[in-house]
């Protein structure tokens, strides 16, 4: 197993950006560019609720923990789970400071409604992989909580999901080590992207600058 320096860990939240658009991820995580739009502000607002590390609830067999920092040495990623629910279960694992055995299930807060594409999905899978590695357990499901429908949706985690996440992270690391921002593949997703103004994906479809200058000079 390759041992990554913690300094070089990739951010778990980036997997979702990466699967949404490789260029968006690179602009944010390599070039450190950011611009808010309505969607990101809504997201921030929503996470303010979840992001209360000191808040801990215990209800019967359930322990709810917020803003839990996680990492995976194997993948070289780090991040924060919005909410992790620990359910008392005889097949579970011991937890620091708790009696009995528990199984963890991450719950990721999302603005809006359930989405058709699976860029969100991989983020949840990566959280699961971090928790499995840190707690030495197997997790088969996780949840999204969608703000607009005020409902959670169960997500079954398969081996194929884990393979896909590993592949994404390998690819991310490849770009990251070369500091390389891939070119934009413009598409309908660009319309909802908060980095549209920074990326300007259409520029690549314009004519060459030298022909622009030549034609103006020869008017």
């Amino acid at each position: 197993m390759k041992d990554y320096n913690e300094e070089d860990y990739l951010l778990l939240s980036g997997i979702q950006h990466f699967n949404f658009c490789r260029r968006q991820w690179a602009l944010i995580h390599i070039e450190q560019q950011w611009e808010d739009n309505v969607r990101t502000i809504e997201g921030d607002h929503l996470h303010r609720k979840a992001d209360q590390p000191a808040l801990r609830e215990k209800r019967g067999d359930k322990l709810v923990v917020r803003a839990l920092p996680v990492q995976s040495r194997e993948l070289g990623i780090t991040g924060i789970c919005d909410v992790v629910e620990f359910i008392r279960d005889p097949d579970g694992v011991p937890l620091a400071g708790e009696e009995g055995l528990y199984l963890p299930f991450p719950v990721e807060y999302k603005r809006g409604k359930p989405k058709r594409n699976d860029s969100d999905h991989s983020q949840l899978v990566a959280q699961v992989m971090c928790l499995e590695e840190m707690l030495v357990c197997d997790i088969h499901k996780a949840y999204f909580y969608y703000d607009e429908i005020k409902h959670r949706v169960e997500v079954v985690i398969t081996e194929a999901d884990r393979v896909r996440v590993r592949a994404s992270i390998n690819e991310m690391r490849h770009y990251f080590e070369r500091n390389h921002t891939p070119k934009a593949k413009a598409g309908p997703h660009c319309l909802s992207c908060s980095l549209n103004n920074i990326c300007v994906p259409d520029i690549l479809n314009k004519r060459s600058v030298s022909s622009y200058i030549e034609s103006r000079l020869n008017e």
Partner: protein
Amino acid sequence: MKKLLNTLFVTLPDTYLALDGENIVVKQEEEILARYPLHNLEAVCTFSYAGVSPALMGACASRNVSLTFMTRTGRFLARVIGEDRGNVVLRKEQYRISDNEERSARVARNMITGKLYNNKWILERATRDYALRVDVERLKKVANSLGETMKLLREVEQLDILRGLEGSAAVQYNSVFDDLILQQKESFYFYGRSRRPPLDKVNALLSFAYTLLANDMKSALESVGLDAYVGFLHRDRPGRASLALDMMEELRGVYADRFVLSLINKKVVNDKGFYIKENLAVIMDDDTRKKVLKAWQDRKQDKIMHPYLNEKIPWGLVPYTQALLLARYIRGDLDEYPPFLWK
């Protein structure tokens, strides 16, 4: 394209700016004079002595609202900048180009091409629009000569040669600039550029417009992650925003000079709005400064078609758009830097 937001200019001398929730409040003594929501603002520019609260500075920095302090006469004093955007990859490439004469020249020559092109068309336009008022032959001659120089520029790879060509083109353009003043000629005239201090009203207006443009340019460069202080044509000098000055070359004529000419030709300003100091330095009075700022803001809202992007944008976004295009060139997405070639 990004949205153009408002700039708040604070011209009352003794007002204090503070943060109240999501608003800027403008105070005099303890009285609140005005209140503006921060989210509508892109920039705050204050000519006041009294200052700005640290909380407001922080709020501006974290929201990318640029905050600039000016003297009463419109000279730049300071800007408040938030945490640096950590785009080191882009910046390092900018520094590499800046350290390399040929690479610098390849960018700078396009900026100068833009300057000459735009100045040429200011003159061509005057001969067309005011054929009966101006000396058409004289203006045409300079315009043609600027056109010839422009063609030479394409192949230049030495900055000194570039500066030489730029310098002689500037002399020619300045020699006919006075011809473009069509109204109030007895009080507004241009013999040549004077800066510190400006010695006539036209120069006072030009200096002020260049300062405003330079501020917009600096903010634009920073917002796309470039270092406004490391240039290609203007070499490094501590405290000088060389890249902002480089980028301004192509916009001086088309953005600032034309703006000043229209203030005079449309009689937005007049002879009485200036006072002359003992040493002949010319200074705008408060009322004129206010009128100029108002006109500047209005101009920014006017829509144009960007010649390279073929996209309709407000004039006020031209500095940002050019900064973005430069960043794209430095990053390797474009084959050359596309100057703003305005006709």
